[in-house]
């Protein structure tokens, strides 16, 4: 069996409390692996440590203990190794207001020292694939929320990363736009054979996007895990949904399950 692409080994992340009174644990001895080509949806309530896990994976913060490995490398300590290898789609579009849609998509390629003319060709192609032809020269303020998020998806895909990290990318959009973008996102990831980690707090979104779902409890650790194969997309879907709801409601007040449970 091949080595997993992403591996968390007993990862803990503690932060100092703002008032200086000790620390709080955001991620607690978290372990999991993700195979190449998988889309893993990470589900959990607000504040359960999903975004901390995301930042650890992106190499933006360092674990307090344990080890994060992406293709066998440490994303925090070997920060530069991952230039162009990890693409991120954030919760909000994070477009630079002083750059046009085209220039925002060009950004990642510019940072990777691509030739301007070549970067523009790639950026135009991605904007076109995401239905934004004709909006290349528009500034972000002239675009709708959905269009801005499409630009940010184009920006992440344009650098051709091996891994895509998405932190609730469609949560601020209306349901119709979010649904369309979700479908588009899955199609693009599958077509390009990428590996993706998709954070969300919507059960249906996790089930629509993920090949696998991991449900997190606070502080971040896996409370439930399910694989969304063909069977579970039919009748099994309801069972998984019920199970996730049960796990999430357990956290709401009925205590934590002792061990990570069922894999469907």
């Amino acid at each position: 069996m091949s080595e997993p692409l992403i591996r968390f080994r007993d990862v803990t992340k503690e932060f100092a409390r703002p008032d200086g009174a000790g620390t709080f644990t955001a991620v607690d001895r978290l372990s999991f692996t993700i195979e190449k080509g998988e889309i893993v949806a990470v589900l959990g309530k607000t504040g359960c440590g999903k975004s901390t896990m995301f930042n650890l994976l992106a190499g933006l913060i360092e674990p307090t203990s344990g080890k994060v490995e992406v293709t066998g490398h440490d994303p925090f300590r070997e920060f530069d190794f991952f230039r162009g290898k990890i693409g991120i789609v954030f919760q909000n579009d994070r477009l630079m207001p002083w750059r046009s849609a085209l220039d925002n998509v060009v950004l990642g390629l510019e940072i990777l020292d691509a030739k301007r003319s070549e970067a523009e060709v790639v950026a135009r192609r991605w904007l076109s694939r995401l239905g934004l032809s004709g909006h290349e020269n528009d500034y972000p303020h002239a675009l709708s929320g959905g269009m801005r998020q499409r630009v940010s998806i184009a920006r992440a895909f344009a650098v051709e990363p091996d891994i895509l990290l998405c932190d609730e990318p469609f949560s601020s959009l209306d349901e119709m736009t979010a649904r369309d973008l979700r479908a588009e996102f899955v199609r693009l990831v599958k077509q390009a054979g990428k590996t993706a980690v998709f954070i969300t707090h919507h059960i249906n979104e996790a089930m629509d996007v993920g090949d696998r779902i991991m449900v997190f409890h606070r502080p971040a650790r896996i409370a439930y895990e399910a694989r969304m194969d063909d069977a579970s997309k039919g009748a099994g879907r309801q069972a998984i949904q019920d199970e996730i709801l049960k796990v999430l409601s357990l956290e709401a007040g009925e205590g934590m399950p002792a061990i990570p449970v069922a894999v469907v």
Partner: protein
Amino acid sequence: MTLNPRVRQFFQASASIVVLLAAWQIASFFFPHYLFPPVQDVLARTVKILFNWPELLQVLETAGRIFAGLAGAFVLGSLIAIPIGRYPKIESYVNPFLIFLQGIPALSWVIVAIIWFHGTEFRIFFIMVITTLPAFTFQVLDSYRSMSKDLFEMTMSFRPSGWTLFRVLIVPTILPGILTAWKINLGNSARVVVVAELVGATGGVGYELLRQQQLFDMAGALAWTIQLVLFVLVVQQIIIRIENWLLRYRAVSERAA
């Protein structure tokens, strides 16, 4: 009939100047001309300076000193502000020094410069830089601090080099603050340069003002002062136009237009 807002604004601004000129003209009827010269005399002298190359050269000399001083203070201020922005611990060491500098009057710096340095130009440059340095530093620092954490993280996710980060994120972020700093410091430095020239220079608007004082020529003093005011107004307009072009990406509400 409703007037175009811009035309109305122009008339409103002009009204106060017309009232001031009228009051001055009336005063010139009742007081000796060495105290209140007629408006037409002042205007004639102003126009004469503008069209007389040796005199215009004096205005340009002052303008050059202002630009050199502002550029020096801007570069130095940015070199101080950006490291403070990146490493906030430095601030507690540098801030008291800058606040101390801010409290020293320009005239004191003139005396210090005369005692410390030889050479008029360097003295004036030093005075211009030292008096505008704190304002540039604080304004660049504030702009740096207003940098969006979201945009910083997004840019960092592409793993840029330090120089690329500076070019693609930091410069565009601090640009509006820099332009504001230039607008504010332009007026300040126009006042300071006159003091510096008055004491130590052999040319420029400040020097000419000193000459008019010795000749007891109020029309001349006002005409030279107006040159400086016109210079500031023209450069302010140029900066505003540059600002409008560079910050054209900003959304403007139709109500604000």
